[in-house]
């Protein structure tokens, strides 16, 4: 890893985080525990789709996460900043605190399963373009 990789990761992470904040903002600033955490879900699923699509399109191994602007800036930086694991877990804790622990676990597992499917769809789409 070079110093330039750190710059790319930082730049991508900043832009991705802004986009995530904006997505949360437009899907509803006020999150209600009784509803589905839509903002986090949307960024995570679209981010999973993009990482699958871009990794396959540019033939980047999932273990290689820096070295080029695409790997450091987009895959590690932008998509890492855009998607979030911590907010997903906090959403689940909020649902659990609202007395909906079963729904909280459904939300976590549903996010992961749909995320896997979205990443797979991204890979499949990129393969069609090869």
């Amino acid at each position: 890893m070079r110093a330039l990789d750190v710059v790319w990761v930082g730049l991508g992470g900043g832009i991705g985080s802004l986009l995530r904040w904006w997505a949360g903002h437009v899907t509803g600033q006020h999150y209600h525990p009784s509803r589905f955490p839509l903002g986090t879900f949307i960024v995570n699923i679209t981010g999973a789709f993009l990482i699958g699509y871009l990794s396959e399109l540019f033939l980047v191994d999932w273990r290689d996460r820096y070295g080029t602007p695409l790997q450091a800036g987009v895959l590690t930086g932008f998509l890492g900043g855009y998607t979030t694991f911590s907010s997903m877990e906090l959403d689940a804790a909020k649902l659990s605190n609202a007395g909906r622990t079963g729904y909280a676990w459904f939300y976590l597992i549903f996010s992961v399963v749909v995320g896997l499917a979205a990443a797979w769809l991204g890979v499949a789409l990129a393969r069609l373009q090869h």
Partner: protein
Amino acid sequence: MLNIIILVFVGGAMGAMLREFLMLSVPKIEGFPLDILVANVVAAFLLGWVTALYKRNILSGDVNTLAGTGIMGGLSTFSSMVYGPMVMLGTGQTRDIWTAIIYLLASIILGYIAVIIGLKLGGSDMPQPPVPMPRRDGA
């Protein structure tokens, strides 16, 4: 508005760079993305902690935006967490498939425990006041 944009951008950049440094310092295990798991669980713990302190008015809204929305969001990642296991599932090898399933389950369970511990440490297990459910009687 500009204030929030700067805080989220700077925080997100810091978080993503921290994750990259973690990826270099966490021991490599062949075929098991331990670095991402560590970054995610640490971020979940810290987000719980920051959220609880914010709810108790110990941290300001700006600090919460910088640290909670920015740094913890940038440090944790969902896309990398699912992409590695997706590739493993696609190999069709029994060992890879089980590694992927165990990795994903370990991530969400440890992350959940971490956020709960963070909330408790910050002195709050009710980060959100209850919202009244819609009434069914039409009133």
